[in-house]
């Protein structure tokens, strides 16, 4: 009986939002139309990539609020580099900038010796401000469009709107990233070390797990994935503004936590995050179709975040009692 309750709690959020999807489908049959499902698949792109990176940070026992700033910076820098460097050059430059932003976060956290989520939260928040302001200074506050470029960037257009068979290109990118990160996390020593770091830092250090390497890895991966997300994002909307990434950090954290990765660190997987992102997107889609105002959607997201964290914590407390 206790075990049934435990499993039920584990998947309560999933059941709740699946229920919501069912109700929406009944009230608003448009929900399961091919156009809407295609729309959902395309929304999957940017958020899932950012959330996959965030999964590693949270599994490692830290948190990263700087992804919004990283997305802003990468988006405006990449789009302006398309003319001078060519499309491939710009793509590589964007990914490198994202990784550097992540590495700077890791450097700050390592040198200061921060071990708690709270310290990481404030340091990365400060860095988010710095990256965002750099994006604003670099772009002069203006927005860049694809049609302002010398020639149409067809590679980025393909990333944003193209299809491979029935799947969109962004979905294929997501599948590739998911496969690589899943293998990295479950099959490779460096990936396993991240889970051990998050589980118990002292125990991990004493048993010879290189926690410094884990910290550098998690933040660099988060920065790289944020950059990839930024590229998919501005390719889809064909426009890059220096505030394009606002809200991504909370949505990514929400998706990771709702998926069931625990904020205490150590437990979680990228597959759970996929579930979490699917739920967040379904929720947005349901609320849109039901005609809920976008402000109330913010409030609903906050409420679900609070609820998911509370639930996560309850599981932890009960797990300790077992």
């Amino acid at each position, binding site marked *: 009986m206790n075990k049934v309750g435990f499993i039920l709690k584990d998947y309560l959020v999933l059941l709740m939002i699946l229920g919501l999807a069912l109700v929406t489908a009944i009230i608003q049959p448009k929900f399961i139309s091919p156009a809407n499902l295609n729309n959902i698949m395309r929304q999957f792109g940017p958020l899932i990539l950012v959330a996959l990176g965030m999964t590693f940070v949270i599994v490692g026992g830290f*948190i990263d609020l700087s992804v919004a700033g990283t997305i802003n910076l990468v988006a405006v820098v990449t789009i302006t580099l398309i003319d001078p460097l060519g499309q491939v050059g710009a793509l590589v430059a964007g990914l490198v900038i994202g990784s550097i932003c992540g590495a700077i976060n890791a450097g*700050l956290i390592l*040198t*200061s*010796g*921060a071990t*708690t*989520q*709270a*310290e990481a*939260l*404030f*340091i990365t*928040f*400060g*860095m*988010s*401000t*710095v990256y*965002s*302001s*750099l994006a*604003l*200074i670099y772009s002069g*506050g203006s927005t860049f469009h694809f049609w302002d470029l010398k020639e149409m960037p067809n590679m980025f257009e393909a990333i944003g709107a193209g299809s491979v068979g029935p799947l969109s290109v962004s979905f294929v990118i997501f599948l590739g990233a998911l496969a690589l990160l899943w293998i990295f996390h479950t099959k490779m020593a460096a990936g396993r070390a991240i889970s051990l770091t998050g589980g118990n830092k002292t125990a991990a250090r004493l048993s010879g797990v290189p926690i410094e390497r884990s910290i550098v890895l998690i933040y660099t991966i988060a920065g790289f994935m944020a950059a990839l997300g930024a590229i998919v994002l501005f390719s889809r909307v064909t426009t890059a503004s220096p505030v394009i990434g606002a809200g991504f950090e*909370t949505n990514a*954290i929400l998706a990771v936590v709702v998926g069931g990765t625990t*904020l*205490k660190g150590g437990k979680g997987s990228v597959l759970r995050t996929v579930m979490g992102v699917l739920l967040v997107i379904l929720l947005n889609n349901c609320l849109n179709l039901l005609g809920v*105002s976008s*402000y*109330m*959607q*913010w*409030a*609903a*997201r*906050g*409420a679900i*975040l*609070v609820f998911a*964290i*509370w639930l996560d*914590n*309850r599981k932890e*407390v009960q797990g300790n009692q077992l």
Partner: protein
Amino acid sequence: MNNLYRLFTQQKAIVAIAVILLVMVAAGGDVSRIFFSSYNLLDMLNSSTILVILGLGVTLTVIAGGCDLSIGGILVVSGILSIQLQNFMPMPLALVLAVLFGTLVGFFNGFLVVQQKTEPFIITLGVGLLLTGVAQQLSDAHPVPANNPDFMNISNGYQFGDGQFTEGHFPGIPNLVIIMLICFVFFAWLIRYTSFGRNLYAIGGDYDVARYSGINVVANKWMTLVISGTMAALGGVLLSSKLNTGSAIYGDFTALVVNCGVVVGGTSFAGGVGGIWQSVLGLLLFGLLDNAMNVLNIPSWYQMMLKGTVIVAILWMDSYTQKRKRELV
């Protein structure tokens, strides 16, 4: 050498304030004259008051080893409520209800953080997000204007003078400064001379030891979040009165800046150390920084970058000091 290290790590705020003042003196000419004019100094104090009022409540939570990031959300919701409720009831009642809203949210935070033992940083961030959405819904994402001169006077009035800045004439003391001083004295007394205040240090220092020593840790820590919610709502009402509008946008940055300001002063996220006096200095530093950058005519995006850098530098130092302490033990 050791003394110098201690000065830099423990009195970060004083060092930083001294650096800013030196820069302003060194700038010379018109810049210094404008910066050090009595009008500008009073204006600076006046515009930092709301941050300080928010920081007083947050200090208690940080000393007890917690944190409150929902204050930005409480600030905007109670600010909007204080104006919208005036349509239905007399002004004093509307203000009281708006402040009570903060108390209620604080109570809810306390339930989640203390009674249910969730991680305060993330959960209060979520509550703040929720409240920002509520504020946007309430105000329809537009500024809500107030049209009651009495309400506007609460924050913009002066005592002992008429608020006119002319040569050789005492302009009086702004109401906001007086309210801040009253709150400051109350909190300083609370934390220094009551058993509640002393218990907070014990709880922040070591939660379990405090519990075994017979302190009612749950009730005391819960109370800190209730107080900080109430102070945030008070700040929201005063801000609405000062600007004569309520809007959902003021809260975005406030929560993190106030929490950083508290840490800058020397109250550490590790809990158990700090005080009201230090927090006020830390928050005044942010007011001073804003004002100095405006007088120096620094463009707003560079201001944002400088502020972010200052936040990172100071929190880096806070963590680094903790690490040194751990290594010494």
